């Protein structure tokens, strides 16, 4: 580099500073930027957690979450029931979260696999914990009682079970080859048990038990391929608009 070039860069930079053509941005601007970045990270994380836990809530509501206990056909039902729209939304938030996290040295200095796995574990554990708090059940209940503005319609639209081959309900009466159940909308179904019906949680079922049935419907009659009991989750077996 010639002396002339050296001089010109240094002179030009200092001249631009002296003439006020370039200003040093104040520190608060960077503090604000950093705070906004953290806020964005927190919002993205909350959005992922909310969407992730909502997906689990939906699958619990329609019974698909419990279907893998029935083996291959149950796993197939779970995959068929996956809410692809919400999974896509969760993935978008995940990508956003990953992108924001990669701006920090603790993340970019490590292979991307680590941050992806870290975020996946965080989302899975966080979603599981949120599901345990029954926050979605609470919001769903409020939505059904018309006490939840804005997102109430959203919960009412997506929170109702609508699977063809899986039904949840409470046993109300038994007969020789089966029993009657009432679903969360108080509709009664006849469950027919055959020798090939699977009982992955045991055959010890009684009146009052909450059950998930896998089988083909014929009107209100269901030929059960599998029957399992579900403990806890009482809310999903009784809709709150039905006293």
């Amino acid at each position, binding site marked *: 580099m010639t002396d002339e070039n050296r001089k010109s*860069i240094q002179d030009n930079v200092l001249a631009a*500073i002296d003439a006020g053509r370039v200003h040093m941005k104040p520190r608060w*601007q960077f503090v604000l930027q950093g705070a906004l970045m953290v806020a964005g990270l927190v919002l993205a994380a909350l959005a992922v957690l909310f969407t992730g836990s909502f997906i689990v809530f939906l699958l619990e509501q329609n019974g698909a979450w419990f279907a893998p206990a029935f083996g291959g056909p149950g796993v197939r039902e779970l995959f068929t029931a996956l809410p692809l729209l919400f999974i896509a939304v969760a993935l978008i938030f995940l990508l956003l979260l990953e992108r924001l996290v*990669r701006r920090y040295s603790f993340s*970019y200095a490590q*292979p991307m*696999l680590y941050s992806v796995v870290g975020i996946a574990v965080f989302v899975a554990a966080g979603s599981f914990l949120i599901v345990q708090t029954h926050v979605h059940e609470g919001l769903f209940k409020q939505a059904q009682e018309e006490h939840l503005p804005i997102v109430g319609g959203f919960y009412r639209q997506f929170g109702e079970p609508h699977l063809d081959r899986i039904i949840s309900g409470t046993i109300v009466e038994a007969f020789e080859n089966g029993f009657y159940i009432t679903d969360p909308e108080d509709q009664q179904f006849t469950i027919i048990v055959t020798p090939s019906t699977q009982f992955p949680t045991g055959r010890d079922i009684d009146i009052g038990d909450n059950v998930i049935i896998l089988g083909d419907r014929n009107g209100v009659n269901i030929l059960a391929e599998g029957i399992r009991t579900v403990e806890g989750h009482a809310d999903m077996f009784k809709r709150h608009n039905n006293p």
Partner: protein
Amino acid sequence: MEELTDEAITRQVQQGDTHAFGVLVERYQDKLQRYAKRFLFGHEDSQDIVQDVFLKAYSNLQSFDPTLKFSPWIYRIAHNEFINAIRKKGREPLSFFDPDTLFPHPIAKERADTEVKDNELRAMLDSCLEKLDLKYREPLVLYYYEDMDYQSISEILHVPVSTVGVRLSRGKTALQKVYTDLHPNEATN
């Protein structure tokens, strides 16, 4: 002023001594010009781009933490400006995702090469740099010409330290191939 560290001078500039910034420009203009020439092959306006790097550094100086090293910080700004310049000209393809950053790699030992080998590599780099993929060219330039360690290169490129090692290793292999293609007689001798 001359005996102060970069970071101490930066602190002075942050406190209002704007002319102290001239010392930083003086210390880094040769390095950044050299970096620009090797990174931005064929860009006639590299001097203007380096000048923009200093103006941008001055403008963002309050975001610099003087407890950290100044050198990777200003090289990071230079890297971004150079990438923008390449993008504007559209001469070289820039990938948004590098699979090398995805998985962990064993970190190669730094400075494993002898000085003679380093000099050989520098000579090869001089004659073949333009033919090398940008993703290998930059770490090779930073390592062999700017004497940066893996950690500093990782901070400049925002890639894992292990990826720096992988790119250097693959870059050297690519360099040898390019050199052999360009100088077939020397390779067979």
